[in-house]
């Protein structure tokens, strides 16, 4: 083991002796997501925590149920040492608003007592208590202490028509109890009991001395709660205790804003009645359930309903905790809002996609366990399933996920089966529409669209023997219903093709209509109806393809005398067939490497028929964003060049991290419409927040999983860059594209040709033009600091190249330092005291051979140096200092240095900055 590691371990040992409280506090897990799960979990936890309670007290002296017994006041327990109860609120609602009819309420004296935890759970879970004769009728809430004295033991819970009490035995002579009146208006002090009311000075809490015990009474969220304590409790202790309770108890929900049912049947019964509009149950004419619920479950279904969700739990109660699946119908969530659940602000949960189902997962920190959630939508309805795990993370295959994530609507009539799905009529082997498509190279392709039946009517004619003469009708499905199921089977027609429709020969038909569906695969909001192939071609050429890659097309053919055979019966049919296919944006060429793309551009730029015609070069993205710089694909068309990257990096913990990036050069875009482009990109994100102009870049701000930039460079070219949300503000303000010229680079004077001045003068300008003029004037004078200069360097980066951010230039015989304002530091949440600048230093006194020495010199002056990285010819001095340094050698052999703010703490952030343009001064 090396010495440094040993020293580090010893330092860690020192830290190991910090306070215990700090250690335990930091280990507590932080839950970040699934608000509905948290809500349900808290309810379940509150319910089951009862199993740990253990003491009792008395309430009604007249009934003497668990009240303090004996006539010897205990004096053993000093009140000051009494632990503070921490009651928890629990909701075990059955319909709570209804008032029992007077003739049906149980008579006074009826009561129900539970002596064990099992009984209690049965009570909690075995509802509903919707029988007015049930003493539990109308019970929505009860209160239980969360923590008790060590010696306290749970005795029983008692419910009667008026009150619910939880009883604990503290010791052989003294008891505690806490209870509340189900109907506060009925609160009365029972007659015949002598008592003395203690004036506490506060009417928030009343204390009654009942001789054998004391009762504290207070109102909480419309409920009246009572606490009975041993008689030796001092007033202050009781008040403190009540105050603590008052602070901890959460506000009770509004009676009609949330409901809980213990079985699906009770829920269904509840929504079958007349529901007021103010109720969370309003508008439910049925409910969604898991189509294939797990077989291994107890006979419980906890269902909770509020304005936003209908929730079902399928599982078992094991060791006082719930194990199983939690299913939720997200009733106020639209499919395009589902991303909010997948990527709430700042969340870094892992998201995996299984077909149309998204899986999110996260793990507790500091202990084993975590949670897995599945999200999907069916039509316009969104759903979620989740389950927690403690020690072993459950594994799901893709097939299991797909099978699991299906919801069925349970409505009137009651049925667990979802609506039957009409069978899809697939393409037939013989006959059918054929599209002859001629591509831009003159090649003719035969396209066979997907055939589906819209409707047909069969006429067997008049057949006296069989008696068959009636017409049969087969209803099909419209294309938009079929698309999600058959999308991969549809052939593709490129929008720049010439097309001819060849109608089937095996049955007479006519072209009825051509329907083009919206801008999304199954979006029926915008259906274009066209009359024939010519209109379709015109539409394809004029359609704005900037927002979508393909459109669904349905070509409808109508027929009337189509032969039909059914066993021995023959007849004719009339009806309509649909022929589906995609039309895609004008064909693009796809390349798998930059070299391949470069060769194609070189070959095509002189060919008027090539999409690369006229190009003298092309743009590539700033490579620094992308550790693995080879794009997966390059797609090129007459309008754009798109680079797609999948970057995999290894994290410090050994795990790999994969992210997608897309860079697009919009070749023919109007710079004036860049903002509009950014807006249209934003509209494509379900989590889109706003477009903000930051440092001349339109940043398409979202809440994940991806963000984008749009900017215009000095040549008026428009670019788009899409990057993972995780990069967010760090990357958003400095996109960068490099022009790759196909011509040979012009010869640049070498470093050796630049003489050095002899002066020690230092000059500083805050005006770049004044600096240029001085350079032009002084470069021939050996005594001038500008001697020998025929140009200078400017930072290339889009953020810093704008003159508006230029701050100053300082020239000496050895260096030219150009400082820029970094601006908008809020974007990356930097500290206000951090240096907010970029500095480009041309070490004009150094040659390429001196670069390493410069790097070493910078390292020696770095306070908190952590390492040296080298990437793509740039040395990056990694440190914890407030400013980061990078050094590289230009093509001229000059040595340049960049200084950047603290936030550029990663080589991949620094690398894009390390580019400078040589600005010749004629």
């Amino acid at each position, binding site marked *: 083991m090396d010495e440094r590691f040993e020293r580090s371990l010893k330092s860690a040992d020192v*830290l190991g002796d910090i306070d215990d409280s700090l250690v335990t506090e930091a280990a507590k897990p932080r839950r970040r997501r699934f608000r509905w799960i948290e809500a349900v979990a808290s309810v379940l936890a509150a319910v089951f925590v009862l199993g740990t309670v253990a003491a009792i007290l008395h309430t009604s002296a007249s009934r003497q149920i668990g009240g303090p017994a004996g006539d010897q006041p205990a004096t053993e327990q000093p009140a000051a040492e009494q632990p503070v109860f921490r009651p928890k609120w629990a909701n075990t609602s059955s319909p709570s608003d209804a008032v029992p009819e007077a003739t049906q309420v149980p008579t006074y004296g009826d009561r129900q007592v539970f002596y064990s935890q099992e009984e209690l759970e049965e009570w909690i879970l075995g509802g509903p208590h919707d029988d007015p004769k049930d003493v539990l009728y109308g019970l929505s809430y009860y209160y239980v202490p969360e923590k008790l004295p060590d010696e306290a033991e749970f005795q029983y819970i008692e419910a009667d028509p008026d009150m619910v009490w939880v009883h604990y035995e503290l010791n052989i002579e003294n008891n505690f109890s806490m209870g509340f009146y189900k109907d506060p208006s009925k609160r009365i002090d029972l007659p015949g009991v002598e008592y003395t009311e203690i004036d506490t000075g506060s009417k928030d809490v009343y204390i009654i001395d009942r001789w054998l015990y004391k009762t504290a009474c207070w109102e909480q969220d419309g409920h009246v709660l009572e606490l009975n304590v041993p008689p030796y409790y001092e007033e202050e202790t009781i008040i403190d205790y009540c105050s603590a309770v008052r602070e901890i108890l959460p506000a009770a929900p509004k009676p009609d804003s949330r409901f809980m049912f213990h079985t699906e049947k009770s829920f269904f019964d509840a929504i079958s009645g007349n529901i007021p509009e103010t109720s969370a149950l309003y508008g439910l004419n049925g409910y969604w359930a898991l189509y294939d619920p797990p077989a291994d479950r107890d006979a419980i279904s906890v269902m909770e309903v509020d304005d936003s969700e209908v929730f079902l739990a399928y599982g078992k109660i094991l060791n006082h905790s719930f194990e199983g699946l939690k299913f939720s119908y997200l009733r106020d969530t639209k499919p395009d809002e589902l991303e909010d659940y997948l990527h709430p*602000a*700042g969340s870094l949960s892992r998201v995996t996609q299984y077909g149309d189902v998204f899986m999110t997962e996260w793990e507790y920190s500091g202990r084993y366990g975590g949670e897995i959630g599945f999200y999907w939508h069916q039509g316009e309805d969104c759903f979620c399933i989740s389950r927690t795990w403690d020690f072993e993370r459950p594994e799901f295959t893709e097939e299991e996920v797909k099978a699991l994530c299906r919801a069925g609507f349970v409505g009137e009539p009651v049925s667990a089966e979802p609506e039957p799905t009409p069978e899809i009529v697939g393409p037939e082997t013989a006959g059918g529409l054929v599209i002859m498509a001629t591509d831009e190279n003159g090649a003719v392709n035969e396209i066979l669209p997907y055939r589906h039946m819209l409707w047909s009517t069969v006429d067997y004619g008049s057949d006296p023997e069989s008696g068959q003469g009636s017409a049969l009708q087969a209803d099909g499905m419209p294309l938009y219903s079929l698309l999600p199921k058959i999308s991969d089977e549809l052939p593709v027609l490129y929008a720049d093709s010439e097309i001819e429709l060849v109608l089937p020969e095996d049955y007479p038909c006519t072209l009825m209509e051509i329907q083009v569906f919206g801008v999304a695969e199954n979006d029926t909001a915008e259906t274009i109806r066209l009359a024939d192939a010519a209109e379709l071609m015109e539409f394809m050429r004029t359609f704005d393809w900037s927002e979508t890659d393909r459109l669904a097309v349905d070509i409808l053919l109508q027929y009337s005398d189509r032969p039909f055979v059914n066993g021995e019966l023959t007849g004719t049919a009339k009806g309509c067939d649909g022929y589906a296919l995609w039309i895609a944006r004008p064909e693009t060429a796809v390349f798998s490497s930059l070299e391949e793309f470069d060769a194609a551009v070189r070959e095509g730029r002189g060919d008027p028929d090539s999409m690369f015609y006229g190009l003298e070069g092309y743009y590539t993205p700033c490579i620094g964003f992308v550790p693995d710089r080879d794009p997966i694909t390059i797609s090129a068309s007459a309008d754009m060049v798109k680079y797609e990257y999948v970057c995999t990096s290894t994290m410090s*913990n050994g795990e790999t991290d994969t992210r997608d990036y897309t860079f697009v050069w919009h070749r023919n875009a109007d710079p004036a419409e860049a903002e509009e482009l950014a807006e249209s990109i934003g509209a494509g994100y379900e989590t889109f927040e706003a477009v903000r102009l930051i440092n001349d870049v339109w940043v398409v701000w979202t809440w994940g999983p991806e963000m984008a930039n749009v900017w215009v460079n000095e040549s008026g070219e428009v670019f788009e860059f899409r990057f993972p949300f995780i990069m967010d503000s760090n990357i958003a303000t400095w996109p960068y594209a490099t022009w790759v010229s196909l011509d040979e680079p012009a010869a640049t004077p070498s470093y050796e040709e630049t003489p050095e001045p002899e002066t020690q003068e230092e000059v500083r300008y805050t005006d770049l033009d004044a600096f240029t003029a001085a350079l032009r004037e002084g470069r021939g004078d050996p005594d001038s600091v500008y001697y020998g200069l025929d140009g200078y360097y400017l930072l290339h980066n889009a953020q810093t190249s704008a003159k508006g951010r230029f701050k100053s230039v300082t020239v000496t015989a050895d260096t030219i330092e150009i400082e820029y304002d970094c601006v908008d530091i809020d974007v990356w949440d930097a500290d206000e005291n951090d240096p907010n600048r970029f500095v480009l230093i041309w070490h004009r006194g150094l040659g390429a051979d001196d670069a390493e020495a410069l790097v070493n010199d910078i390292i020696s002056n770095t306070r908190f140096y952590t390492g040296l990285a080298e990437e793509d010819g740039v040395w990056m001095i990694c440190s*914890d200092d407030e400013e980061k340094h990078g050094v590289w050698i230009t093509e001229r052999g000059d040595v340049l240095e960049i200084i950047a703010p603290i936030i550029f703490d990663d080589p991949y952030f620094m690398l894009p900055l390390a580019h400078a343009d040589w600005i010749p001064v004629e």
Partner: protein
Amino acid sequence: MEDSEILGLLNRRDERAAELLFEKYGGLCRSIISNVLEDPRDVEECLNGVMFRLWSAIPPAQPGDLKAYAAKAARNEALMRARTLKPKQGLEIPLSEIESTLPAPEADSLGTAELISRFLKKQPPYKRDMFIRRYWYFYPIKDIAGEFSVSESKVTSLLFRMRDQLRTYLIKEGIFDG
């Protein structure tokens, strides 16, 4: 099972205590050790060592906070074993960061720990917890960022500033000269 009951069993040398201890704090200890040692077999062996240490140490030790006591035992045992076994990949990063912040180990370590505690208690809870998770529990930056729902850059910057402040604080307190 309450800690006091486990302690009671330990004091009575009841072997059920070991089982209960493992059941209650085994997961916590394992996660701490896993952040220090690379090989899962080493982790398990170390965990057994920690449990034995706790069994041997109580009594006479009577920890007021059994959870923290177990966590510290796990951390100490894991760091000790990291000297001879393969440490967790990336462990050297938090170690070197904290080494550059604290005085030489030869200094009064208990006094230093007390000052560090005092410093941390003055910090906002989320900053304090991030710091402890990184340098006491050795969690990766990514995990901390995920736990607190912030970017990794933010965690890095925040930890850097806290280390800087701690260093300044310790210099002011005369613990070391920086």
